[in-house]
């Protein structure tokens, strides 16, 4: 039972990181109808800048994280302005392909910045230590992951529902032309959603690079697990991103914990495939994910 709880917490923490990345996908998809495949590269940049500010410039850690989030948000907004703004009105897949090109470019830039070593953001909040409650073992870093993600989701949710700008963003996602007619600066909303997604990716990057984990030039590919998460939860649902992320994280943690037993049947390292298997199984039952909006077809 205690083992089970330990694994569950581990999974929830991992899932929180996926959920944060997935939230970035959802925010951009809702505003612009584009799936941003470059999101993992933004995450790696987030880890890099956190490390840069915290270790090289010796800023206090929370400040370093904030600075990194701001920088990555700006990278996101600039990328949108240069590469995605001309794609307004083009088929969604062309835009998605542009983001794949951006993924290649940004990953190479990030890898060039990081170099060939594994980069860690440091150990500011005693992240590497573990605490025990009875026999349940939890790492401090995992606690931070779960808590910060919950706070970030609450913040983004409140921002979208309560603020004027959030209202304008939701209007844009519903219908660009109508939003334009109501005086919403649609272009600025696009930039804003990319900045928001960039900020979320930056935060996720800090989490990935801390607490006994590091960032190297393969991390961006691992972050692609946010893709099954958004399909599972539904492309346009923030709630789906959160729940989907946790589900995938927990499923992965339990598979990894039992990989010794499983490897006799399905081979080693099954936990890498589990998110995709879950995704395909869910899509067979609910083609638009658990919380996604089904497309209404009219002829």
């Amino acid at each position, binding site marked *: 039972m205690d083992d089970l709880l330990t694994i569950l917490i581990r999974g929830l923490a991992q899932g929180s990181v996926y959920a944060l990345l997935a939230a970035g996908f959802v925010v951009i998809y809702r505003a612009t109808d584009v799936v941003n495949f470059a999101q993992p590269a933004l995450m790696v940049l987030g880890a890099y800048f956190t490390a840069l500010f915290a270790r090289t410039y010796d800023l206090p850690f929370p400040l370093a994280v904030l600075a990194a989030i701001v920088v990555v948000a700006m990278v996101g907004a600039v990328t949108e302005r240069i590469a995605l703004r001309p794609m307004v009105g083009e088929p969604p*897949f062309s835009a998605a392909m542009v983001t794949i090109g951006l993924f290649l470019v940004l990953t190479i830039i990030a890898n060039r910045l990081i170099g*060939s070593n594994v980069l860690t953001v440091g150990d500011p909040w005693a992240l590497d230590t573990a605490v025990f409650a009875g026999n349940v073992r939890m790492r401090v870093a995992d606690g931070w992951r779960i808590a910060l993600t919950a706070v970030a989701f609450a913040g983004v949710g409140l921002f979208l529902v309560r603020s004027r700008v959030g209202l304008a963003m939701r209007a844009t996602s519903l219908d660009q032309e109508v939003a334009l007619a109501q005086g919403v600066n649609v272009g600025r909303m696009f930039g804003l959603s990319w900045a928001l997604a960039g900020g979320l990716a930056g935060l996720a990057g800090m989490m990935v690079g801390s607490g006994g984990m590091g960032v190297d030039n393969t991390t961006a590919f691992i972050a692609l697990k946010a*893709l099954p998460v958004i399909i599972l939860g539904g492309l346009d649902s923030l709630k789906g991103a959160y729940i989907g992320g946790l589900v995938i994280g927990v499923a992965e943690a339990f598979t990894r914990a039992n990989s010794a037993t499983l490897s006799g049947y399905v081979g080693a*390292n099954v936990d890498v495939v589990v998110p995709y298997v879950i995704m*395909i199984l869910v899509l067979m039952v609910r083609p638009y994910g658990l919380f996604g909006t089904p497309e209404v077809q009219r002829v």
Partner: protein
Amino acid sequence: MTGNRGSFSLTGRRAVTLRGRPELYTDYASDQALLNTPAKRTFTLVLVAALLVTPFLMERDLTTLLTTVFIYAIGAIGLNLVSGYAGQVSLGHAFFVGLGAYTAAFLGSEATSSLRGLGLEMWIWLPLAGLVPAVIGFLVAPIAARVRGLYLAILTLGLVFIGDHIFKEARTFTGGPGVGRRAAAPIVGGLDLSRRQEILGVTVEGANLFYLFCFALLVVMAIAARNLARSKSGRAFAAVRDRDIAAEVMGVPLTRTKVLAFTVSSFYAGICGGLLAITYGVIEPAAFNLLMSVDFLAMVLIGGVATISGSIAGAAFVVLLPRLVQTYATYIPGVSRGSTGGGILTVFQVQGLLFGVLIVAFIILEPRGMYGLWLRVRNYWKAWPFSY
């Protein structure tokens, strides 16, 4: 039909053209012809003749490079059929290519102590390398047909990861990660296409033989794809791509069309994989990853969506670009050769950057790809000396 000096033909067997007006058609058959203008006929003939002679004038490694272009082009045509013509965007092409490669390796190479193999000849293993992925594509397609657009793209992305896992774990077939297995031997009727041979008293290099074989196969498969695209099924593809609900209302069977597109596409991918393994020599599970899928998508997009010649041009572009960068990178300041070094960027980073930037630039500036560039050139000369 006043003013038409030719006879009006109902059967459409005889194409009638006016002198000086080569593009005036008076029947459907000549309008639908593959090479419908004299210019196309001439240029195609010249191109084919040039490509037949080239290997005998080139360095061996350049011959191999061009062979790789032909093989990738087969795969790119496959992806263009499902994604370009039928509009079902697939990120899972690498999975089917890998499936073809391993089917070929299993059937075509001898069994060893750790690997299974049947040691069959190429005329058996090559078609099967296409058929096995086609069957898997046929089985996967009904699931894929349930979802559309970006959901489909990500669903097929899952195929790559699941395939990667299977390739790594099925060690008796694939050799496992980091080890891999040797590709099948390209032997047809006792003739080994990878060795120097004496044919009709002429000594031919193995690389050249394989080049000619792949070229011939590409021509056959390209024409087959072109014919499929202009057939009833091909028009159904286009209808589904443009507006699937409207297509269904008009009586196009939606699921059957999507399944057909996936099946044919997987067949092309499998053939591509079987042949690709030979140029690689040793095939490793890690080769068939997401990046390969992105490469194929880039071929389709840079070459030209829903064009066969575009797929071939795109394949040439994607395969030749790294080589060009490698050759000319030394002239760019700040670029170091090799994987480590003192420059600002390594050659590999320049390759990756250029590739990413070109994908973005092509989609933004010329969505029709290289085929679109060619159309601009052609239209310029068609209207010359008038600009419109």
